[in-house]
């Protein structure tokens, strides 16, 4: 089903990459048993980058400059730890092209938790040693999905400022391009710790962080239990979890233009990871988390045992915003009006791991 002119949806699944083009055609440009847990569109080069992962043969980033028709696959896997690390990469969780003033820089977050940087548009990568050498790293613990660096936030105002999130390590920030890092979890709860240790310096199971489009010092965070906002670029966090049926969930999406506007999809509790009361509801705040409203129009409100993973929810760059989420049960829902109403635009896909909207206009 057509979604929007000028928007190509990139859908990473456990069994390949799918696309939904503006005419509504579903294509499968990466198949043959590879999972695609991460995908990105680099508008600087109109390039799709995909973290192609073979169950057998390892992982790497592959690129397409013709919207998925052909792919450049590196001769050798291009995500590799140096031999002395005594670690090997399981998969790429996040691909983040940098800003226009660093046109060839691409960051990738991997499992086990580490950050890689490319200076050639995603052809080759080197590990960011400053984070790997952080004294906290040996004590990070894997969450249910593995020990992964799943979120990379860049700062358009200063390319040296990087924010990452790790499950389970929490939020870490660098002001020097990755040379040094500090944990940045003040105010974020860790329910899985003993009662008197629930606000540790690090070790929180942060699920996703998103940056406000209008106020770049404002961040929104979906925790493993808890919703938070920071007004100081992550230095400290305030609980904004009142008003949702469950503060457990995976994704967090900021509106591409409107200040203080963000979206979550509550996901039951830590045990029953499906939409609460078997109703599929997106929740939107328009006032920085002061209140939340349920968005249900077009979404199943009965017998909906749905899970939406942390990167399976995204927005495009249009106004009103297009919003898109994929489910572990292979459905893809879209909204063309800031989330006011939704439509099922694809189904019967493999479990959806990541959705991204490539703005082609």
């Amino acid at each position, binding site marked *: 089903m057509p979604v929007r002119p000028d928007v190509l949806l990139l859908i990473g699944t*456990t069994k390949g990459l799918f696309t939904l083009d503006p005419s509504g055609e579903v294509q499968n440009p990466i198949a043959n048993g590879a999972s695609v847990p991460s995908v990105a569109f680099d508008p600087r080069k109109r390039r799709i980058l995909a973290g192609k992962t*073979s169950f057998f043969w390892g992982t790497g980033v592959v690129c397409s400059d013709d919207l998925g028709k052909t792919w450049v696959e590196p001769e050798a896997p291009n995500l590799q730890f140096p031999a002395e690390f*005594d670690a*090997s990469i399981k998969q790429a969780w996040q691909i983040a092209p940098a800003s226009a003033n660093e046109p060839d820089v691409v960051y990738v977050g991997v499992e086990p938790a580490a950050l890689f940087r490319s200076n050639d548009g995603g052809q080759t990568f080197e590990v960011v040693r400053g984070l790997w050498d952080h004294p906290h790293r040996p004590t990070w613990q894997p969450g249910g999905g593995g020990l992964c660096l799943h979120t990379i936030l860049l700062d358009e105002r200063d390319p040296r400022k990087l924010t990452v999130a790790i499950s389970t390590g929490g939020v870490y920030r660098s002001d020097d391009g990755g040379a040094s890092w500090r944990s940045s979890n003040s105010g974020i709860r860790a329910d899985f710790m003993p009662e008197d240790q629930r606000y540790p310096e690090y070790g929180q199971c942060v699920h996703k962080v998103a940056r406000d489009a209008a106020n770049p010092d404002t961040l929104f965070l979906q925790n493993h239990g808890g919703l938070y906002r920071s007004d100081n670029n992550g230095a400290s966090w305030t609980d904004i979890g009142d008003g949702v049926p469950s503060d457990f969930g995976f994704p967090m999406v900021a509106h591409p233009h409107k200040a203080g506007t963000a979206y979550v999809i509550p996901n039951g509790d830590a045990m029953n990871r499906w939409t609460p009361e078997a109703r599929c509801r997106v929740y939107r705040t328009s006032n920085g988390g002061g209140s939340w409203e349920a968005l249900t129009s077009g979404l199943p409100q009965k017998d909906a045992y749905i899970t939406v993973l942390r990167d399976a929810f995204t927005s495009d760059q249009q106004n009103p915003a297009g919003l898109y989420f994929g489910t572990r049960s292979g459905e893809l829902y879209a909204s063309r009006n800031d989330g006011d109403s939704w439509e099922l635009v694809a189904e019967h896909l493999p479990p959806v791991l990541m959705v991204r909207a490539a703005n082609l206009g």
Partner: protein
Amino acid sequence: MQVLVHIPGSLRQYCGGARQVRVECEAPSTLACVFERLHADHPGVVERALDEQGKIRQHVNVFVDGESIRAGPKRGLETPLGAGSEVWILPAVSGGQAAA
């Protein structure tokens, strides 16, 4: 001496589509030496069979002269090979998607 290496379908794109390739090694040799030559002759195959630590990936099996190098008398990458030995690189039966 020559060793015949059987390439699985999903890795043939890295050796010009060949189902088997012959690797020239000094006798006596080991699997590690064969992989070193294979890497030099056809880069891309060994890098996918082994991880960046040089270990055979968890879901890859290698057979030398009909026996898995993970079990029995074989000795992993130090498994000895002689003239006419054959090596199979195979995806393990553990395939599919653990997370699916």
